[in-house]
């Protein structure tokens, strides 16, 4: 299932987790994690979803507006062979 990052601006702050998870499951959307600004207004949310429309539907159900959806791949230092790892990882 493709992974997406969803940018949101939520003036009222984010709703509670369990509610959101319930709303998502109806559309096959899985919430992975979110990065939320200090004031709780802006967030970057990571989702697994069948397609962008499912994220929008789930967002509407949860009253979570969508600014932008980007499909993403995950890169992380441990995915590279040692020679190509950033210094601090190799010299651990």
């Amino acid at each position, binding site marked *: 299932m493709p992974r997406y990052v969803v940018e949101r601006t939520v003036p009222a702050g984010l709703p509670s987790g369990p509610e959101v998870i319930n709303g998502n499951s109806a559309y096959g959307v899985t919430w992975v994690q979110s990065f939320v600004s200090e004031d709780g207004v802006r967030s970057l949310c990571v989702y697994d979803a069948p397609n*962008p*429309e499912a994220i929008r*539907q789930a967002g*509407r159900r949860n009253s979570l507006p969508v600014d932008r*959806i980007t*499909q993403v791949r995950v890169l992380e230092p441990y995915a590279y062979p040692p020679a190509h790892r950033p210094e601090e990882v190799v010299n651990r």
Partner: protein
Amino acid sequence: MQPPGGRLKTPELIERSVQLADLGKHLADVVETSRGALVAVGGEAGAGKTALVSSFCDRTGNDARVIHGACYPLSTARPLGPFADIALLSAPVKSAIDAGGKPHEVAAALLSETNSRRLVIVVLEDLQWADEASLDVLRVIAGRIAAVRMLVIAIYRDDELDRLHPLRILLGDLPTNVSRLTVPPLSGRGVAALARRVGQRVDADGGELYRKTGGNPFFVTEVLASPQAEIPDTVRDAVLARVARLAPGAMALLDAISIAPGGADISLLEAIAPDSMGELDVCVTSGVVTVERDVARFRHELARIAVEESMPALRRRELHRAALRTIAEPGARQRDLEALSHHAESAGDHEAVLSYAPQAAAHAAALGAHREAEAQYARALVHKALMKPADRAGILASHAQECYLRNMGADAIASGTEAVFIYHELGDKLREADTLCMLSTIQRINGRLSDAEHEVAEALKLLKGLPAGRELARAHACAAQIAMCQGDVPRTYAEGESALSIAEQVGDRETIAHTLITVGTIEAEDDSIDGFDSGITKLERGVTIARESGFDELVGRGYNNLCYEAFAKRRLDLVDRYVSECIGYCTDRGLQLWLNTALGSKAELELFRGNWDAAVESAHRALAEPGTTLPRLGPLTVLGLVRGRRGDPDAWRPLDEALAIADAAGELQMLVAVASARAELAWLEGDPQRMVRETQRIVEWAERDGAAYALKDISYWRWKAGLIESQPARDDSPRVAQRSGNSASAALRWAELGYPYDAALAMADEGTERSLREALATFQRLGARAAAAVVARSLRQLGARGVPRGPRPATASHRAGLTPREVEIGGLLAQGLRDAEIASRLFLSVKTVGHHVSSILHKLGVRTRAEAGAKIGSRSAPI
């Protein structure tokens, strides 16, 4: 399942109070509001779904009338199986089925069972094994349930539905008044409570019994019913351990019962297990088997499978043989055809398979259970080497037809082709020609127009010199349809006339309807005679004839063409009517192919109206089932456009699939819509040279064929890319007005026609700050983030203030600063064309081309044409 054994009298179910309360609430709602409801009850095999629902129904006592029907795991399901059960309890359903009723008629009969005094509860069990016709009935019931006082409880195993299981698609498709309820396994405490009831002690957390059974109530009760030192590892072992304690005669009887998945008539058992009949009571009191209305069946399918699979293969085969002999004896009744076909195959009796499978197939097809019909034909075709050639050809042709209706294009073509070959060998010209015509239809719907054309030409050749009849009329009608797809207007009229005159002579209503639809379509597009109204009239007449006579295929095709023509004239009001009529007709009759096509039109309709959520919902529904390719074109295009306009990811992928389908189809009209969508997406991404590239082929093709109609939208996007080309003549499209300095009036017309997005596009083309702001507001309201960003950029370029910042266009092209015209010339230059050649290709003077070329060299920082060509052609460096 009820816990077996006579010791327990209607025991309280363990850990089911939430589910019972839930069902009770639905029932109370139905009583209170008089609005019916459908509850889908899912859970794994052995979870106790039936026990839950039976217990619920028992509690309602005399307040409700319960009507019950079930499906069984026959290798090929019995058409309308559960409703045949219900027919025993319901006179209206019985008369509908006896009259050979179609699914919507059976549904109507069942819904008519409501009664003002007593509420009706309909329980449908094991729907994971339902035949296609039954699922169609369920679909119709779901659509109309709110209007009647009825509670329908649909029980199914949710662990056996893969992603493309028809029931899963149906459940995903059902309207919102359908609720779901899951029956989970027991907890460890629940398992312990169950054990205590039969006087066994296990740990409070269920202990090993819980760990091994996973809390599956059926597994737990089986283990508890055969107390032994060790807990068996599987349900199968638990069942076998339990029946092993029965006398040999009882076990022999269980064997006999197990070969009939739908349950064995007592009379059948008397014939195939005469010596063991005395043990029937033992089997019943031991709790393994129930007897109801003279049919013996296992209490639980898991037990039946365990017993059937533990039988030696030879004994199993013998029992099937005996069953086959018994049922076949008095002359098979229609409802036994599936059982006969099932026993014949399991008995390894090829002759019997060849006799019963095709009969069962024809019976299923007549009821609209095309999945079962296809499977029965396929079962017979396994032994096709044993058939006489004429029989084989007939069955192959029928199989092809069923595959086609089942959306299995490749199999349809394979079987159809083989049938044609056999008829050819036999010298049966009429049947060969007829099968060729069917094959041509299948080829066309799968996007193989030239093959389709070839088949029809062959058919006409064969029929030359034979007396004119239905076959010839049909061949001309197919030829007319193909000429229409190729845009050959005179030939369409000519072939259509031949088809109509013969069809009217021989009174062939099907060919009359077929031809009216074809000719009406071409007439509606005929600008030379202003034929829209008269063409639509013909089309509607064709559809009416088809509806009256139940020519489902023609109904679907007719509506599809009506929508197409109404779209072409931007008559969304008409499209709306056609789409809802077509969806209603197809849903009632389970015509998936045409339902998908209608959903595609609905997706386009909602796209134009600016209801994008509704548009993508219809598109996703139409795309849910893979299969015949052409109906995917519209929904894929809609999906790509909505994503592109919203600035969502993954917009190109559906448009790539659409392009591949349109390419393979080889029809200009299909490529146009895809190319136009792709050009729009390139525009949204700020990539003018891609806009030119994506539309180039259409321009060349349309000029070659003189197909001006194809250029309305295409030349608009090329104009937006910066190209100045001649306009298509005689066109009243606001799209054309849009680029002739009449953007404001075009915007008004789009708005009047009900196209808000297109109105905003035209507004933006006007280019003043006021019109741009208005366009921006509309785009924002529609959620068209990408389009809004383009307009916001134009506003900023005008120096407007307070415009929200959007993303910048990701265009490599701007780095080299080439104009769209330069990009186009650069492309030809890279192909090694000389200035004079480029000039003639683009209708420019050689001198002008020369200017452009030197400008390209300058901007790319190279000195020679070859260097420029390499830089552009290699595409390794962005130009």
